[in-house]
Structures are given as C-alpha cells and as structure tokens.
C-alpha cells in the first residue's frame, strides 16, 4: 500500500489547505459531535481515532465492495482511505461533515482502483439502472386482471414474532441478507449501506452520492426490496422467482 500524500477537496471529500474549521457550507452543518471528535483527533487522541475507525469501517468495506471485486482489494482501498484521512485531518475545514468527507475519499479511491483493475468495466453500466421504470416487486405477484386486479396473487406471508434480534440470530437469514447486499448494483448498494447500515441522514447521503432525495428513495426502496425477498426466500423457502 502506498503512503497517502494526496489530499482531497472537501467537495469530493477534500481537505483544503487551511487549518481550523469553517462553518459548513454544503448544507449539512458540522455537528458538535464532529467538532469535538476533530479536536480530539488533532490533539493526537488515539482513542478518538479508534472510535472513528470502529464507527465507519464496516460501511466503508461494504461500499468499497461495490467498486472492486475482491474483499482483499476492498480492505486495501479502505486502508488507503484511512491513511488519507489521517494525512488530511490538519487541513479539514469542516465544510462538510466528517462522514461526508471520509466517504467522499473512499468513493474517489474505490472508483480509481476499480477502473484500474478493470474488474468492473464501466460504472455507467449501473448508472442506467435508475432510468428504467421496473417495479420493485415482481409484477407476477399481483393479479393481472379481473375483479381482484392489482391485488396480491402471491402475497407476503406473516413473519410471526420476527424481530431484528431474532433475524440476526438466524445465521441463514444473515447470510441471505449479506448475499443480497453483495449482489446489489453499486447505485443501490451505496444508498442502502449509507442510509440503513451506516445510519446517515438523508441529506448527507444525497450530498455524498450527489443525488436527489427522490432518487435516493427510489434506489433505497429497490435495495430494501431485494434484501426483503432474500429473507422471504430464506424464511419461507419460497423460490427467488415465482
């Protein structure tokens, strides 16, 4: 892994070459939590750095896997990202949130790495995904005609007593969810990881991915639906396609 000397503009996640924190100018104000964390990081508090890594590492790895094929490469991309964060912190102005800055760096590095590896030929292949009007739910699950047209033909069955904790304790269900997430197109995966796994606010996700809120929710719903179908198949033994 190369030591990171490059800095990144906050517009793409980049620290500009001025110390101190400005008022955020990209719509998401820098939170008090971010300010406090940045102060601790600049004071050399290793515990603060561990906190930062623990908080975002999972989502960074999962997102990187949307751009590069191998887990090993994703780990390297994320390691490079953290190195860039360490190097860029003194110049981070706070014109975006810390998360927006870090994920901006990741996307920049992961795209670059993905293109260099040519494992994912073009990103535009996925970008067209949002332009189609496919329904999130398989249309064959609804009655096509008659008095009950538009009603469920193959309705979802109740998942009695299921809770997130019970689902997480079910290894097969977790594997099914992981596989469904891995199989998502990059544009859907980015949104699902940032919003549902990482817990970023809607505006923050839009800022990181440069998309509108409407677009975000179209993608988010399609991603959630694919994961839901994976869980449904796992719990009910329903074939993936009816």
């Amino acid at each position, binding site marked *: 892994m190369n030591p990171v000397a490059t800095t990144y503009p906050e517009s793409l996640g980049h620290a500009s070459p001025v110390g101190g924190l400005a008022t955020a100018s990209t719509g998401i104000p820098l939170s008090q939590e971010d300010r406090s964390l940045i102060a601790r990081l600049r004071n050399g508090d290793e515990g603060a750095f561990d906190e930062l890594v623990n908080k975002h590492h999972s989502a960074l790895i999962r997102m990187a896997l949307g751009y590069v094929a191998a887990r090993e490469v994703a780990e390297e991309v994320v390691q490079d990202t953290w190195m860039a964060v360490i190097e860029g912190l003194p110049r981070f102005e706070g014109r975006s949130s810390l998360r927006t800055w870090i994920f901006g760096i990741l996307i920049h590095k992961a795209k670059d790495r993905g293109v260099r590896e040519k494992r994912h030929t073009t990103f535009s292949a996925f970008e067209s995904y949002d332009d189609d009007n496919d329904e999130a739910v398989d249309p064959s699950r609804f009655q096509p005609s008659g008095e009950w047209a*538009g009603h469920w033909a193959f309705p979802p069955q109740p998942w009695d007593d299921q809770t997130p904790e019970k689902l997480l304790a079910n290894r097969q269900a977790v594997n099914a969810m992981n596989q469904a997430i891995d199989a998502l197109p990059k544009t859907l995966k980015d949104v699902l990881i940032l919003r549902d796994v990482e817990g970023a606010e809607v505006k923050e996700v839009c800022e990181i991915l440069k998309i509108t809120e409407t677009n975000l929710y179209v993608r988010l719903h399609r991603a959630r639906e694919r994961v839901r179908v994976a869980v449904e198949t796992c719990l009910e033994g329903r074939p993936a396609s009816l």
Partner: protein
Amino acid sequence: MKDYPSQWVAGGFTCRRIPARASDYIDGRLPLGAQVRVGLHLASCLHCRNYLTQLALVRDTLEQFPPIAIRPFDRLRLRRQFARVHPQHPFHCDHV
C-alpha cells in the same frame, strides 16, 4: 382481517401501487395526502400490512447488522501512522 375491494377504491390505491410508496411510508416521508391514502389501504389489507412490516423489519435489522472488524494488522498500521502525523499533545483541548 378480510379484504374489501370497495375500500381500496376509497383509499385510491390497489396493492400493486403500495410497494412503490412503502419505504417513504415507513420512514414517514410521504406527503400527508398520500400517507392517508396508503393508511386507508393498509387498514383493510392484511397482505400489504405484512409487506410493510417485513420491509420495516429488514430496515431495522440492517441498522443492527454485524460489523466488519478491521484486521488487527491494519489497525496497528493505522495507529502508527496516526501517532506519527498527530503526536499527542500534553493538554487536550475540546474546542476548535
């Protein structure tokens, strides 16, 4: 609960139109009018209630998804780099 087609008409949506609005609905983002119409449909449609319950469960489970731990060697390397670039100050300052 039994489904009554006439009530879907009152709600304005058939089941097929619910999924496109489901994530907005469970995240409380639908405009009031659409929220009422979806709510009216759900009141008489067990299947769509099941669908939304499942979708919300998936969302809530993802929030608690098991973390991917950083590899120990990677963490060590990052700590070293952090300590090199940001040597610890003797007095911490919480304000920037």
